[in-house]
Each structure stands twice: as structure tokens, then as C-alpha cells.
């Protein structure tokens, strides 16, 4: 079976590895009579993105803004209500495209909770060999590959292969999770808060390892995190999300150097600073994000935006190219009606 061999590039370096168009996921809230749903949580709303080959796309945003839902949608762990995906030129789950199984072989994911994402009843090598075996690799071969992978993530196979997850530390477990994601030789790895639960020194080790692995296996990353510093360190491009929508997306230098959207600016200025002279004195935005069951009309950020005007409540700002990045804000859209618009 050739399905456990690495997939070769098809569309050339310019074709995006992954294109998602109009992804939407509304989670129904059962409540009405006879379990009829009257309300939905708009976790992800008409989100489009493209990931170039070999890049690292960082995804940032507050808790509950739909970051993890995007990850699960891209893996098709949950079915989108709407939207299409194209993987290196092949539509996903469509008559002439590739199957979900094929998508899941080329796209893999590392979960945040290193403990819950390992089966407590299986040894490390059994966990790592599961996916290759499910794809038809012989048992002995799958085990040999798993031991190689363990070595690749910096865990001595002789020492760790036959251990159980509870005998490992958090950092070691997350290395195992990364090894598992690599077991099928994917092209795209989605890291959903993969290092957030680790302590700082371990986090640095794992991040450096991720950089090395990307080089070695020619990977593309989607790196989801709420840690802005880590995202800056790792990413080529950054996508900022707010209440299930992209508010700003662009090269890391542009987003961090010249943020255009008021939400991005607020996020960046909320970063703790090591420099006492640049210490943030007041919270840049107040309160919690509005309820995604009933998001504000027009621009979803307007309830917390210091520059909100009438137009923000009437029309939804679309992502607009401003040169270095794309921004969804009426202040950056020519002729939008906002007094600060160019």
C-alpha cells in the first residue's frame, strides 16, 4: 500500500497548499420544544483562507473566537455547514476531488491537552503505530517507523517506546503527540495551542524542535495560539480572529509592525512588556467579547471599538487589501462612510 509514503508535490510551489472558501460552522443549541434548535452559536462565519506551501500561518485571537473550530473544520473533524476546501488543487470531499481519508493523511493535527490526546491504555509505540497500521502498514514496520519518529522528536526509543502516557512529563507527552501527527508523513500540520500548556523552558525546546522538524520534513504549519510572542517567533503570516471572523491577515512584520485593525492593536498593546518604560498602564479594551449566539450587527468588534460610528453597525466591513495586509475595518475601506476612512 502506497498510502503511507510521503505525498509528492503536485501543483508546484506557487499553488497554495490549502485553500478554504466560505467556511461556516454554526453550532445548534438544543433547547426548544422536542429538541428543536432555536439558537445557534456562530463559531465560524464565512471564513476564507489560503496557506502557502512551506509557510507557517499563525492564528491568534481571544478565547472563544473560533480558533479551535477552524482547526477542526480544516481537519474535517467537524463537518462545515458551508464552504469548500481545496488541497493542492484537489477539491476535498467532492466528486472529482480527494476523499476525507486522503485529506486526513496529508493534514494532521496536534491537540492542546497532551494528556487527553493520548490513550492511557496504550504504550507510546502502540499509539504512534496506530495510524500507519490503520493505513495498512504491517505491524513490525509500523513499530520500526514509530521508534524512528520517537528519536526524531528527541525521545530515546529504548527508553520511551514501551512506556504509558502517565509515566511521561507534559513536554514529553507533547513530543509524542507531535510524533503521532508526523506518523503519516503529512504535508500540513495544524498545531492547536500545542505548546500553550507547557512551561516556558519546555515550550522553547518544543518550539525549536518544531522549527527543525518543519525543515526536515518540508512541512507547512498552521500555528494556533493565544501567545502573541510565540506566534511572532514562529509565523510567516498571521491571521487575527474575532468572533468567528478574520479581522486582519498579513505578513508577520506587517501585523506586528503596523497593525491596522483596532482589535489587532489592542491585542498587541495588551502584551506584557519586559521593558518597564513601555509598561501598559490601562487595559486597551474592556470587557468580554459579545455573545457569539447573537453577535453585533455590522462590524462585530464595534461594541468594544473606541472608533465605532453609525456605519459600523449598519454594514459589515469586508477584508480589504491595504498593501501589506488585509483588514476588515471601515476605517480602512475607501468611501465606507466612516469619518476616518481614506
Amino acid at each position, binding site marked *: 500500500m502506497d498510502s503511507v509514503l510521503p505525498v509528492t508535490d503536485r501543483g508546484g510551489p506557487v499553488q497554495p497548499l490549502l485553500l478554504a472558501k466560505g467556511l461556516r460552522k454554526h453550532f445548534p443549541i438544543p433547547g426548544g420544544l422536542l429538541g428543536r434548535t432555536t439558537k445557534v452559536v456562530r463559531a465560524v462565519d464565512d471564513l476564507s483562507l489560503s496557506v502557502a506551501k512551506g509557510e507557517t500561518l499563525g492564528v491568534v485571537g481571544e478565547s472563544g473566537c473560533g480558533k479551535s473550530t477552524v482547526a477542526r473544520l480544516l481537519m474535517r473533524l467537524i463537518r462545515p455547514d458551508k464552504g469548500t476546501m481545496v488541497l493542492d488543487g484537489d477539491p476535498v470531499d467532492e466528486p472529482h476531488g480527494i476523499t476525507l481519508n486522503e485529506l486526513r493523511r496529508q493534514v494532521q493535527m496536534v491537540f492542546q491537552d497532551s494528556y487527553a490526546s493520548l*490513550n492511557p491504555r*496504550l504504550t507510546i509505540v502502540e499509539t504512534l503505530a496506530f*495510524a500507519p497500521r490503520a493505513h495498512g502498514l504491517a505491524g513490525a514496520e509500523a513499530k520500526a517507523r514509530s521508534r524512528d519518529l520517537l528519536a526524531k522528536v528527541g525521545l530515546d526509543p529504548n*527508553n520511551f517506546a514501551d512506556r504509558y502516557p502517565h509515566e511521561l512529563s507534559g513536554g514529553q507527552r507533547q513530543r509524542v503527540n507531535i510524533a503521532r501527527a508526523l506518523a*503519516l508523513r503529512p504535508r500540513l500540520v495544524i498545531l492547536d495551542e500545542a505548546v500553550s500548556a507547557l512551561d516556558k523552558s519546555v515550550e522553547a*525546546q518544543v518550539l*525549536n*524542535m518544531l522549527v527543525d522538524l518543519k525543515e526536515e520534513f518540508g512541512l507547512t504549519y498552521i500555528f494556533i495560539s493565544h501567545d502573541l510572542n510565540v506566534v511572532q517567533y514562529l509565523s510567516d503570516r498571521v491571521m487575527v480572529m474575532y468572533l468567528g471572523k478574520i479581522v486582519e491577515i498579513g505578513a508577520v512584520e506587517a501585523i506586528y509592525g503596523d497593525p491596522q485593525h483596532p482589535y489587532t492593536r489592542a491585542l498587541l498593546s495588551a502584551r506584557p512588556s519586559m521593558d518597564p518604560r513601555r509598561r501598559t498602564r490601562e487595559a486597551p479594551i474592556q470587557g468580554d467579547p459579545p455573545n457569539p449566539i447573537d453577535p453585533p450587527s455590522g462590524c462585530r468588534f464595534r461594541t468594544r471599538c473606541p472608533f465605532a460610528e453609525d456605519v459600523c453597525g449598519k454594514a459589515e466591513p469586508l477584508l480589504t487589501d491595504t498593501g501589506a495586509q488585509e483588514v476588515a475595518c471601515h476605517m480602512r475601506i475607501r468611501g465606507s462612510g466612516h469619518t476616518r476612512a481614506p
Partner: protein
Amino acid sequence: MAIQSPSLDMTTAAAPAPVARPATRSYWQQVGRRLRRDPVTLVCGGILLLIVLAALGAPWLGLADPYKTSMLRRLYPIGSPNFPLGTDELGRDMLSRLIYGGRLSLFMGVTPVICALLIGGALGITAGFMGGRVNMLIMRIMDVFYAFPSVLLAISLSGAMGAGAENTLLALTLVFIPPICRVSESVTTQVRGFDFVDAARASGAGTLTIVRVHVLGNVLGPILVYATSLISVAIILAAGLSFLGLGVKPPEPEWGLMLNTLRQAIYVNPLLAALPGVMIFITSICFNLMSDGLRAAMDVKA
């Protein structure tokens, strides 16, 4: 910038000193080790083993014929010569009948639980793993069974189908399917929520493979513990049905039936009349304590 410490490079983690580490025990090895250190469970297990072995090996123990009646030696008290546990109302040897009675009583207690475990467990795991409408359908059907008290359900089923061991088995199996199904469903729902199941789905494995490798290993323990605790209930229910004349028919030795027929002797020889009840009590409490011990032993973190 947060990450720029060159001292924290890969070599620190990649080259651990070759320390001899203690041999890893599998989960079930750990459970076994804990069970061996639990005196209560060991004693209960020993008693049950004794009862089961005696019941199985009854024909070779040199006991008196459990069916042989004699009008001359009715209701001998406990401790009579040749009849260490006395004789019943028809002059049959009590020791022999109690040991032979264990065969039917244990069989009637264990078989319905095993059958219900297979059916209810499969239904519950299916409901828990599939979720949604499948879950709703299966669990609402179980709720219908739940609407009746288990004793009443067993009595009415046995009554409707007529007396006899087979019908009792069938009735008891039906009674135990809903509770086992419900426990299986809740454990499976819990396990399905863990990321490792999502990770397995993300690897493209089929549903059956995921259930076999990732779900069964994690849900079987709690379901088995629960089923063990049901055995004692089944023994008591089976004995109860026999007592009411809905189970085993005389002259078969069976603890519930013996309790019924010795009822008339309760003023003549109360200790004797209580003996089958004592056997039911000992057996069911041993099963209960065993299931408790099993639960404690399986409660290993991870």
C-alpha cells in the same frame, strides 16, 4: 522576544542518560497487583471460588443423593449424625441440596448478567459512540424498560411466559439490559469526548478500528465492575422468582425454591429454614464486595 535561549537546545532532551528505569507494568498488571494486596477482595474471591468449585464438583464429592426423600428423617436439626446440616421437609440431605443448589442458583445469577452484558454493552457503546439520533433511539427504548421496577418487570415477564428456568433466564436478561446499557452509554460518551479519539479519527482509521483499539480498552473496566455488582442482584432476583413459584420447578435443588419449601418449617426448625437464605446472602455479598474491590483496584490514575 520570548524564545531565544540558545542553552535550551535539543541536545538536553535528545540525549538522556541511559538510566535503568523500572519495568513498565501494563494497566491490567497493575490492577492485578492491587487486587492481590486487598484482603477483603481476596477472602471474598476465595469464598466464591469455594462455592463455585463445590457446585461444579458436587457429583464427585461423595454427597448424599439430593433428590432422595425419606418420610422417617424429616427436618433433622443441624449437626445430626450423617446429616451435618440436617434434612429438609421431605427428608433430603440439606448439605447435598445446598451444594447442588449452588449450580442452578449461580447459573441463574451469572448467565443473565453475561447475556445482558453482551447485548446491553453493545447497545450502550453504540449509542455512546454514535451519539445524536442513534443514541436518542436506543436510550429512549431503554427508558421504557426503566419505567418498571426491576422486580416487577421480572415477575411480570416470567408470569407472562410461564414458569421454568429458561423463561427466568430470559426475563432476568431483559431486566439487566437497560442498566448495563445506560452505564456503557455514559462511559462511552465520556471517552468519546477525549482528544485521543479525535486524533484517531484524524488518522483516518475506521469507526470499528477506533472502537476496538481506543474505546473498548477504556470502557470495559467500568462496565465489568458494574456487571459484577449486578450478579448478586440477579442471584437474589432468580431466588425470588423461584420462591414465588415462577422460576425453577421442584424437586430441583435451588436456593430460592428451597427457601420457599422450608417456609413451613420455620417454627419447627428456624435455623434450618434459614440455611438457603444464608447461602444467598453470603454469595451475593461476596459478589458485591468483589465488585467494590475491583472498582478500587481499577481506579488507577491512568
